[in-house]
Each structure stands twice: as structure tokens, then as C-alpha cells.
């Protein structure tokens, strides 16, 4: 089966308020692949996910991002989403007065481009909520308002399973979760895994990767990918930390 490139990041440089954060990222995610990106704090992990999605604060100074072969440079945030890109936020925002169910329905309509009949929507919602152990009452609450960390993350994954994007970027979905919540989130991610979808998992800890086994692991440090490998790279990092990799890349300065 030939591999089809879903997401191609070419020599990507990005700055925030004039300060360079990403200094030349090269990465290719093919359909059906799960890539994990790990790295110490301040390596640029969140910047990467924000730049991919098109946050206006992040300027692309060099390089490009191709989604299904298309340069996303001139695509607005919502256009990228409609092209099949999804971002699970590390810190999901709360939108007062907007019920979760309404938000989900609008998102589904926006990304699928057509009106979803209410019955069909309710059915889908029920199935996926059960998978993620989300109670009915949750859906009537206002979006992310007063949600615990775990609830916010599960809500992000609920959106992932409902919206069925082609390219999913999950930004530290595992941070702040206890082991039970982590398992549920992992179950959700695994349920979306198939040969059409590409998944980019940005994680801080290796834990999640026990449940969602990646095809490739990359280490991000100082705005660049300094090492790539397969899933055992993650296990090594868990055991030994980042120092040895940073040393290899001559990045072991006072900065870390």
C-alpha cells in the first residue's frame, strides 16, 4: 500500500512577537500514521500546534505547511479546519452561555459542510459520549465553564471522535490527567485510528504512548526536531530523560 502524505512541514520557522521559536522543522505525516512529538519545556511544542492551526499571533517567517498537498499559508483558521485539520487544545477556552451540545452540533455542521439532522446528531453524540464515559448532563453545561482539567481534555477528544478530521493534532492531551482519565482519553484516540487518518501527538510524558503506540517518535528541542525514531525512543526518553539527546545535538547548555 503506497503512503499518501497528509501533512508536510517543510523547514518551518515561526516567531511570536518577533522572537523566533521554531527554527526549521521538517516533518511528514502520512495517512494512517501516528507520530509523537516529545520535548523539554520551552522546546516549541505548543507553538508548533498553534502555527499549524493558524493562530494569528504566530508568524511563519520561513518554510511552509502543506495539508494534503495544499499550502495552508493563505487559509484562515476555519478554512484549515474545513480542509480536515483538527487541534485538540492543551488549554481549552471556556465560552460562557454556549452549551456543549450546541457547540458540537455547530462544529459538526461547519466541518462537514451540511446540516446534520438532529436525530442523527443525537445518536452519534450518545455513542461517542458513552465511549468516553461522558454523562448526558455534561452536554448541557456551558462550554468548558467550570470544567475540571480531565473534563476539558475528554471534551476535546469527544470533538475528535465526532468531527472525524483527516489530520488531528493533539496538544499535550495527556497533561494534568490521572491514570483513569488518561486511559479513557487513550481509548478515544485509539478509536479514531485508521489508515486514512494522520495523528500528531504532542506529549510531555511517555505514559500516553503506552496506550497509543506511535509509529514514529520525534524529539523537539530549541525549535527543531533533533532526533527521530520508533516507539522505543520514547521508552528510552522515559528511562533516561532528555539530556543524552540534547548532548548529542550539542544543545546541552545552561538553557535546559
Amino acid at each position, binding site marked *: 500500500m503506497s503512503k499518501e502524505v497528509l501533512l508536510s512541514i517543510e523547514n518551518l520557522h515561526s516567531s511570536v512577537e518577533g522572537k523566533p521559536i521554531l527554527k526549521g522543522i521538517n516533518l511528514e505525516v502520512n495517512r494512517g500514521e501516528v507520530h509523537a512529538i516529545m520535548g523539554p519545556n520551552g522546546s516549541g511544542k505548543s507553538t508548533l500546534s498553534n502555527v499549524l492551526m493558524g493562530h494569528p499571533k504566530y508568524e511563519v517567517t520561513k518554510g511552509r505547511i502543506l495539508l494534503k498537498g495544499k499550502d495552508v499559508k493563505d487559509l484562515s483558521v*476555519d478554512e*484549515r479546519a474545513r480542509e480536515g485539520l483538527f487541534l485538540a*487544545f492543551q488549554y481549552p477556552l471556556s*465560552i460562557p*452561555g*454556549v452549551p456543549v451540545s450546541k457547540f458540537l452540533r455547530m*462544529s459538526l455542521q*461547519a466541518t462537514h459542510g451540511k446540516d446534520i439532522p438532529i436525530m442523527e446528531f443525537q445518536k452519534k453524540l450518545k455513542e461517542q459520549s458513552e465511549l468516553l464515559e461522558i454523562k448526558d448532563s455534561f452536554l448541557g453545561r456551558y462550554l468548558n465553564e467550570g470544567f475540571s482539567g480531565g473534563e476539558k481534555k475528554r471534551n476535546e477528544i469527544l470533538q475528535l471522535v465526532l468531527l472525524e478530521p483527516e489530520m488531528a493534532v493533539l496538544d499535550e492531551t495527556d497533561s494534568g490527567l490521572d491514570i483513569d482519565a488518561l486511559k479513557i482519553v487513550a481509548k478515544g484516540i485509539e478509536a479514531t485510528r485508521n489508515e486514512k487518518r494522520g495523528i500528531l501527538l504532542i506529549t510531555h510524558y511517555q505514559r500516553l504512548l503506552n496506550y497509543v503506540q506511535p509509529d514514529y517518535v520525534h524529539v523537539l528541542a530549541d525549535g527543531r526536531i533533533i532526533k527521530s525514531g520508533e516507539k522505543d525512543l520514547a521508552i528510552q526518553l522515559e528511562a533516561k530523560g532528555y539530556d543524552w539527546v540534547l548532548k548529542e545535538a550539542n544543545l546541552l547548555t545552561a538553557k535546559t
Partner: protein
Amino acid sequence: MATKKARLGKKDYKYGFHDDVKNVFKPGKGLTKKLLNEMSEMKQEPKWMLENRLKALDVFLQKPMPTWGNTQLLGQLDFENIFYYVRPTEKTEKRWEDVPDKVKNTFDRLGIPEAERRFLAGVTAQYESEVVYHSIRKDLEKQGVIFLGMDDAVKQFPDLVKQYFGTIIPMEDNKFASLNTAVWSGGSFIYVPKNTHVEIPLQAYFRINSENMGQFERTLIITDEGSDVHYIEGCTAPTYTSNSLHSAVVELVALPGSKIRYTTIQNWSNNVYNLVTKRAMAYQDAAVEWIDGNIGSKLTMKYPSVYLMGKGARGEVLSIAYAGRGQHQDAGAKMIHAAPHTTSTILSKSISRDGGRTSYRGLVRVNKGASGCKANVRCDALLLDEDSRSDTYPTMDINEKDATIGHEATVSKVGEEQLFYLMSRGIKENEAQSMIVNGFIEPFIKELPMEYAVELNRLMALEMEGAIG
């Protein structure tokens, strides 16, 4: 109900297109004793009402303009240059063809039914869905509920009207109360007998053959012990009028154990000064709820209030104000705790965009002797851009140590991050803005009857579109 010789209809107005209204009675501009005499005679009013009007005119002429509020705009009001009372002839009819396209388009976008469009555009003098209302009226009659236009009530139920008219808002209260008392016309009178629950919300346009959305409406609602009623006035669709001054007075009396909910949504055209005095007396264990939506007008000054006169009385004001370019919504509430163990809640939500200005002006007073009271105020302002403005002038005058008072005020803008989050789900920017604004006024929308909620949501979405486009 007594029939009239000529139909009382919507006031004379100009959109800037040709106008061939022949008027039976057009005494010229300005407010004079002569006008009041002629008006009272046309209406065939009892003498006491004419005397009341004349007295109020004297008060009006003596009273100074308010020295607070948007004095700049208020200063532009030219009292001499207003028609205070006009009765168009039977043949009043603007032609639908003459109604500006912009107006027609808005009706289209809001999905306003055909019959309503003509009424709102002033093409016909009254609402044309008579059949429905006849059956509603029969039910009300059976219950002993009195609901008619104020003009008729003065003649048919003089004792009842006399007992309460001007007692909640005396003519001396403020300049615009005296103006209204002198020159009022139209408005609703409702009396609900003891222990009667009025099932459906009563609405202004149920009053067939009477003036609707007039300049100087006078409304009086009395709920007798243990009864309750919900009254709705105004509408979300933009209402076009050339009458630049609207000054209504609304008096509510909730006798012990009764409840009144009064919902208003006003969307006057941008040339209108909307200066309204609304006040309720809530007696023992009674409740009054003002649901107040301010969307239109050039300047609105309106502070619905509840005087909590008996133990256990409850007052609530839930208000939203939306100010776009060139608008100033100066709204708020007043709660006077004049008895122990009374409670009040004020929730004010305002949105400003495009240089619009909203103000919250509120008073909570707990009188000496009113022990064990609870009052809560929350005012939230949402600024949609850098040009817009919001001000808060809350006053707390608390004279009892055991009063529980809460006050919270927030100002926010539609955050870049919130927009990013919604747009990352494929939602277009203006729709995302709309969702956020919608969420902001959700506590208000929740309290409206379904069709109003739908209309208001649609209207706000339209406004948001305008904001971006």
C-alpha cells in the same frame, strides 16, 4: 368595547418618502392647553382625566431637564418641534412599494410574517390577525380578567383606574412622567382578579382597535391577591417611526401573593429618544419581574424599578442592552427594600460595538427597618471593539446592618483566543462572534417565550454580520 368613528392607528411618520396622509385632527406642533382640551374631547374622556392632564402640563413646564445622563443628546430634544397628538384618517395607508428596501430586507432576514411586516412598516394601522385574538379574549372574559386599551379603560372602569393611576408614578416624579401624564394616549390596562392565573402571555397587539406602539403610552397593570400574569410589549423587529420622542409610563401593582412578569423588547429606529419610567409596587409575598431588552433607539433612558413594600416581596430585573453605531443605551434598575425579608436581583448584560455606548445605572436601597433583606447585582459588559464604550454607575444605599448585598461587575471583550478556538472547529469568524455574543446574553434569552427567543437570536446574528461586513 366601544367602537370608534375613526380608527386609532399608528402615528403619522415620514421615512423621507412621499406622504399623503389627511388628518382629521392636526393641531400643530408643541404642547399647549388647547391641544390637551381638544385631545381629551376627541377621546371623550371624563373630566377628571382632563384636569389631570392640565395639571401635569403645568408640572412639565416647570420641571427642569435631568442634569445627569447623556445631557448632550438630551439637550438636542426640541419640545416645540414635536407633534404630540395626531389622529390619522381612515385613509391612512403608506404604500408597500414606498417602504425602503433596507427595511424590507431586514424583515426578510428575520423571517417576519407578511401580516406583521405591513404593520411594522406602518403600511397598515393595526395588526391584522384578528381571529386568533378573539378566542383569547373570550377566555380572558370568562376568568374576569380585564384587558383593554388605556383609553377605553378610563371610560369603562373609571373607579379602578382612578384608584391607581398616577399613584405609583406621580406626575411630579420627573419631567418625562409629567409629560406623559399630560399627553398620554394608548397603552394597556390590565386587572387580574384574585387567585387567577392567566395562562398565556398578554401582548400589546391583542388590543384591537387601539393605538399600538404610540409615542406616549400609559400602561397600568394590577394583579389582585394570589394572581399572576405575564405581559409582553414591543418586538424584536425594527420599528420605524418619525416620532423622535417616545416617553411611556408603566405602573404595576402586585397585591399580596401575586406576580407580574413584564417583558419588553424595544427596537426603535435610530432617530428615537426612548425615555421611559417604569415602576412596580410589590406587596407582601408578591413578585415583580422586569425582563427588559433594549436594542434600538438613539438614546434610551430606562430604569425599571420595584418597590418592595411588604414582607417577603421579591423584585427582579433582567436586562440586556445592545448599542451599535450612534446609539446610547442608558439602562439599569432600581430596587427599594421598604419592608423586611425582601429580596431583589438585578442582572444587566450590555453589548457595545462600533462606537456604541451602554451604561448601567442602578440603585439598591435598603431602608431603615427593612431587616433581613438580600440584594444581588451583577452587570456584565461586552465590548466588541476598541471604539465602543461601557459605563457602570451602581449605587448602594444600605441602612440595615444585616442586609446581604452582592455586587459583581465584569467587562470583557471577545477574546482572540475564544475566536481561535471556535474557528478551529470550522466556524467562520462572524459566526463565532455571533456565538460568543449569543452565549453572553443566554441568561436573558432563556427567559423569553420561544418565538421571541428565536427572533432575538436571529436579530443578534444579523447585527453581528453587520459588525463584520
